[in-house]
């Protein structure tokens, strides 16, 4: 038995089975969420490449699976990444119970996460680009909403992600060919440029950012939230692998400087657009832009504190996006107008969803006591040691997110003509939002207790420690 069979083969088979029984929504949800949670627990408890006594028998999980001459390798140090991916998968699958996603959601999400794990374990790791593209193709059906035509955001997402593949693959070829090239310096540079364009398309880095707010608006909010949180997370971990392997890349001051500037541009643009945005669905897209900007900034620090923040910002981001998009899905299912002016007095109608949304939103903004604060603060401190001007721009971006949040806050408490009736939320809804809010508050108040265990993910990247 090998680790790739357990964490790639088995969930892939389950996702196929779930696909065929997807009409039974509750059963698929329980099996899909259950298997994800089980695999996450298994990854946390079982050690790879060591012998386990099973009564009179013993079992060893090997790390490698060879397919058509290429290896899929999940080492013991990568167990935490696998555990993280499958725990997030379980989180998203269970959350879908009240979100009104279509029947493709559970099987496809399980398949997508499995493919992400496969992408992070394939060697040579540049083949990951192809596996991620397959995951992107599988993700398309989860965006569909009943009775609605295919919208621009979904198409643009598909086009941008597909166009990224040639750039990533040719950059991989360039990096491999450069040492034996006559003009290796130029080949490295060209490969670097291709990699930058490919990552720009993948991560929606300026000027390729346009699909993010469009997807947030046009796809099902919860499905879009899943992709907007898990796809960048996987790609950022993939890029970490890249930086870990090619040490010289981290020493290129031009790369760090470009990444820093692009990070600032993303934060400023996302924040300012959010401040002036009236449509709630698109707001999430801009928050995602700001979050990707912070990841780029963390990378540009090229210090241990930067790498730790690079990992830590991902966790509250995923939970925050999940809780915000879940709230938006519920409001959209109630056919509420998604313009923020349509939310007058909505706090009194869906209190739990509203509190969940606000806690998620202010997590993106970096409000103290919420996890956005302890995870973003080290990045800002690290940045302030390099340049103060950047801090001003980053603050403008964060201020934009605060403005959007407070504008929304002002509207939800105001009622018009006392015409709004008090409505009750379902028990399940209350439980889901309470769990999300408590989780975020726990991360924000006790970051060293709740968030720091996730730093084990960094153990897979020995050169970055």
């Amino acid at each position, binding site marked *: 038995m090998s680790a790739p069979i357990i964490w790639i083969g088995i969930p892939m088979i389950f996702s196929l089975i779930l696909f065929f029984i997807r009409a039974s929504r509750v059963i698929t949800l329980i099996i899909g969420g259950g298997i994800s949670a089980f695999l996450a627990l298994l990854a946390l408890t079982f050690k790879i490449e060591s012998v386990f006594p099973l009564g009179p028998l013993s079992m060893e999980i090997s790390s490698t699976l060879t*397919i*058509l*001459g290429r290896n899929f390798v999940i080492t013991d140090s990568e167990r935490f990444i696998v555990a993280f991916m499958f725990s997030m998968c379980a989180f998203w699958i269970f959350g879908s119970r009240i979100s009104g996603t*279509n*029947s493709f959601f559970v099987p496809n999400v399980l398949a997508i996460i499995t493919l992400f794990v496969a992408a992070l374990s394939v060697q040579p790791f540049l*083949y990951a680009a*192809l596996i991620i593209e*397959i995951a992107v193709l599988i993700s398309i059906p989860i965006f569909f909403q009943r009775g609605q035509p*295919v919208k621009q955001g979904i198409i643009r997402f598909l086009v941008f992600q597909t166009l990224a593949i040639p750039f990533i693959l*040719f950059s991989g070829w360039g990096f491999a060919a450069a040492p034996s090239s006559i003009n290796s310096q130029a080949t490295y540079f060209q490969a670097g440029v291709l990699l930058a364009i490919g990552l720009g398309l993948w991560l929606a880095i300026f000027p390729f950012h346009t699909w993010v707010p469009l997807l947030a608006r046009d796809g099902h909010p919860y499905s879009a939230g899943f992709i907007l949180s898990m796809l960048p997370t996987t790609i950022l971990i993939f890029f970490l692998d890249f930086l870990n392997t090619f040490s010289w890349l981290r020493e290129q001051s031009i790369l760090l400087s470009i990444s820093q500037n692009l990070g600032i541009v993303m934060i400023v643009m996302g924040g300012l657009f959010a401040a002036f945005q009236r449509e709630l669905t698109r707001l999430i897209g801009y928050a995602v832009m700001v979050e990707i900007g912070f990841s780029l900034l963390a990378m540009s620090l090229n210090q241990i504190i930067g790498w730790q923040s690079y990992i830590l910002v991902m966790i509250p981001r995923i939970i925050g996006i999940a809780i915000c998009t879940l709230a938006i899905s519920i409001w959209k299912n109630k056919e509420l107008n998604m313009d923020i002016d349509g939310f007058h007095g909505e706090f009194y109608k869906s209190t739990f969803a509203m509190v969940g949304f606000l806690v998620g939103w202010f997590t993106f903004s970096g409000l103290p006591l919420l996890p956005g604060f302890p995870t973003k603060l080290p990045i800002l401190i690290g940045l302030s040691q390099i340049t103060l001007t950047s801090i001003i721009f980053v603050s403008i971006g964060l201020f934009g997110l605060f403005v959007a949040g407070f504008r929304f806050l002002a509207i939800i408490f105001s009622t018009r003509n006392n015409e709004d009736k008090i409505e009750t939320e379902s028990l399940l809804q209350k439980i889901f939002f309470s769990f999300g809010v408590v989780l975020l508050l726990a991360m924000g108040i006790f970051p060293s207790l709740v968030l720091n265990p996730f730093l084990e993910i960094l153990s897979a990247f020995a050169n970055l420690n």
Partner: protein
Amino acid sequence: MSSLIDILPVLLAGLSSLILFINKKWRWNILAMAAIYVSVFWMVLQVWPTGLAVVKLIAGWMAGAILGSAIKEDSKLLIEDKKVEQRFKLVIVLIIWIFSFSIMQSIKIRLPIPDTLIWGGVLLIITGILQIGMSIRPIRIIFGLLTAFSGFEVLYAGVEQSVLVAGFLVIITLGISLVGVLFIQQEEGEIV
């Protein structure tokens, strides 16, 4: 100097991608797609063994068949061509092709693969991207994506001969066409 037999698939790629771009008739589109993959197979044959190269042809034809089987005779997706639009697109394609031939030399320096592969690959990529950029209808964008991706496959075949990569590229080609079918069904309100 490339022989005529090597240049023929480039001409076929150019002609078929042009038909796919300017003609909106459904059957012509599927035939043009099939012809594109014949040209891809022909070009890839210069650097890959026949057994591996034929995978691209089969995958491409399967993608065409998948898309072709999804459209109905009475579909609202069947639309008439406009002569003015076709003329405009023809001129645009010719301009872009001239531009692409002007950058061939610089690509040739960086990519150590046969000239005909570079010509065919770049031609398909550029026409495909043009189609993606100038279309609104999802299915036309899918045709554009398939065209551009087939161009990339031609270029990448020159530098990589891995069976696993060939397998992944086949899955992606079929995946894009299946997404196209989903788009068609969603447009016609058939997806639950």
